[in-house]
């Protein structure tokens, strides 16, 4: 972890300096983390069992599982490599698109007059209430009419609108924290909304940007319903559909399913590890003061 310089001169690491406090932290946080890790550890354990044998009952036989070939197997059984690529493609396009359109909307919300702002927020929160199951049939008809079925256009269409009113609202609140004076001075300098958004507002909400990026990534990465509804050719399938196919094997083949699940779990986790590192790189808020 890089240590960031503190402009105010305070020591950056504001953890209690007593070693006992530090140990307590690690013990506590460590145990919590361990508990949270258990499902994943179990997943890996099962994924390394030999398929075709009844799953181990109880704690008997804690022999080290070593069926690494399961991972190779699932890539043979299904075009999983293709699915992986497709998932990355769709998610890789969806995340930037979402960040742009959602931050546009969130930023614009802060600049609106109070009356319009209130209305739009209310509508957005109301839109959050709309159940997905109620929407899909109309979407199916709409996308069929637009000729987007069996293309990624149908999957990416929501990204063009910020994907989810939640993200817009999150951006709104992040932008709200920025003191109004900054925008006003920018305006006096002659910057229009676009410049303000791009050069001033965005950099100041990096944590929100990263957070929403992570949430969006996961949302598209694990999306099962929309590919199921809109994609008909196997060459376009994404990872969740591949996993679904693995799920349909019978119980003794669960190690393969778990192997697929591990493959599907890793990219978002790695992304999160990278991103959270940047979360706390610098204290953005205090940077504003200069």
């Amino acid at each position: 972890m890089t240590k960031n310089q503190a402009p105010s001169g305070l020591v950056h690491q504001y953890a209690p300096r007593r070693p006992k406090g530090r140990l307590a932290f690690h013990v506590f946080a460590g145990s919590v983390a361990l508990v949270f890790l258990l499902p994943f550890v179990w997943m890996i354990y099962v994924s390394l069992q030999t398929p075709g044998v009844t799953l181990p009952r109880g704690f008997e036989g804690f022999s080290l599982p070593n069926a690494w070939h399961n991972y190779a197997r699932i890539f043979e059984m299904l075009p999983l490599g293709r699915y992986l690529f497709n998932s990355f493609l769709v998610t890789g396009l969806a995340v930037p698109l979402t960040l742009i359109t959602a931050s546009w909307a969130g930023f614009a919300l802060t600049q609106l007059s109070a009356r319009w702002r209130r209305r739009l927020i209310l509508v957005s929160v109301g839109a959050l209430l709309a159940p997905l199951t109620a929407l899909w049939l109309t979407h199916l008809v709409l996308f069929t009419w637009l000729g987007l079925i069996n293309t990624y256009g149908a999957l990416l269409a929501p990204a063009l609108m910020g994907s989810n009113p939640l993200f817009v609202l999150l951006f709104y609140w992040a932008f709200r924290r920025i003191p109004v004076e900054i925008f006003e001075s920018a305006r006096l300098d002659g910057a229009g909304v676009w410049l303000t958004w791009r050069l001033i507002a965005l950099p100041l909400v990096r944590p929100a940007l990263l957070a929403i990026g992570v949430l969006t990534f996961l949302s598209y990465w694990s999306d099962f319903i929309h590919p199921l509804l809109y994609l008909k050719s196997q060459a376009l399938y994404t990872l969740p559909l591949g996993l679904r196919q693995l799920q349909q094997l019978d119980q003794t083949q669960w190690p393969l399913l778990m192997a697929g699940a591990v493959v599907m779990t890793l990219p978002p986790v790695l992304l999160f590890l990278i991103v959270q590192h940047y979360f706390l790189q610098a204290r953005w808020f205090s940077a504003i003061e200069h």
Partner: protein
Amino acid sequence: MKSSRPLLIKLIVIQILLGGCQAAPTTQQPPPETVAPATPTSNVSFMIFGDPAELQAYQNLVKAYDAKFPGEKIELIHIPDQADYRQRLAADFAAGTPADVVLINYRRFSVLAEKGALEPLGPYLEKSPLIHAADFYPEAILAFQWGRRGLMCIPQNISSLVVYYNKDLFQAAGLAYPSADWTWDDFLATAQALTLDQDGDGHTDQHGLGVEPTLQRVAPFIWQNGGDVVRIERSVWTRELALDDPLALEAIRWFVALQLTHHVVPNAVDEEAENSESRFLNGRVAMYLNSRRGVPTYRTITAFDWDVAPLPRKRWRRSGVLHADGYCLPAVSAHKAAAWQFIEFANSVEGQTLVARSGRTVPSLKVVAESPAFLDPAAKPLNSRVFLDTLPHLRMLPRVTNWPDIEEIANDEIERAFYGQADVVEAIHAAVVRTEEYFP
């Protein structure tokens, strides 16, 4: 014990989850007067359900068809889970894009038939040079007739409920295999003799019987006892379940007692820990009630020898319950002629023989059912004749429009009673009351 099969690689690579050759608008298309000849590149989509073993059978069928009619490609759409399949079916019909050929169970096709969503296949059958109505078992044909519309789908199979039993366990207990004539009492005694606590820890290690507590499983016992599932007055089904009539109730009590009183069936906790079918596959349950569907999976058992026996009888009655699936053609299909050609092939002697070899079906064509494809003396179950012997005694479950809902509610109540979570009379009464509104 299952052995991993390289076949699975092929199976899954070919299967597709969703299908439909085209995204049709939601309005129904009028059936064309003259059907355009199927172009060599047209795809007829064929949607099925089943585990990988069943899928294999349909794969072979499609391959044979493609070989016989080069240029006609069948797009096989496999939805492994039956519940998923039904939901996919409903979604496809609602969106106007069902597959061209769909496999539907006779208990579930009523709503589609009622609303005219299916193309009646009776006229096609009459004109067919390859197959004729007389070639099929009449019970199978009857299952897919719908009032004035006549025959709606072509039946593929005509299975019934039988008792799969583990021969090794019988031998170990010194019991004779079930006779073709055995009674309810014999059945219970056998199950009791096969329910053992082998290590003396107070916990049953081996159960004599495994069975799903559903209406479909209980029905034959109700009929054998002289009761009815739905009250019939003057040959017409009335508007409610007859499960609370004395004879039906008596049969249900007997069925429930298998678990509740005699404990020959795993209780709720044991069933949750490991379900009965898995126990049977692993030699921890001696007898298991199922239809022909289980055969492809059971054929992979290597640890013990097994066979089938008919259901036990009560006095002279031997009723069995019909299980049948049919090939249906949605009315909105744009490839009716090509689809019919496939359906015809699938239900010809050649087609049904292919599927029968997988063990999955009891063929609806008499010729195929009596042939070695089904009665192969070298293929398990050796006693396959049992399926044919029960044919005269088969009865259908009512085919009213909302039958799946009625069945599901009845199943929930029967399950409750079976595991002792509710009193039998109370549960059955609840079933009758709750299902009243679903009858037309």
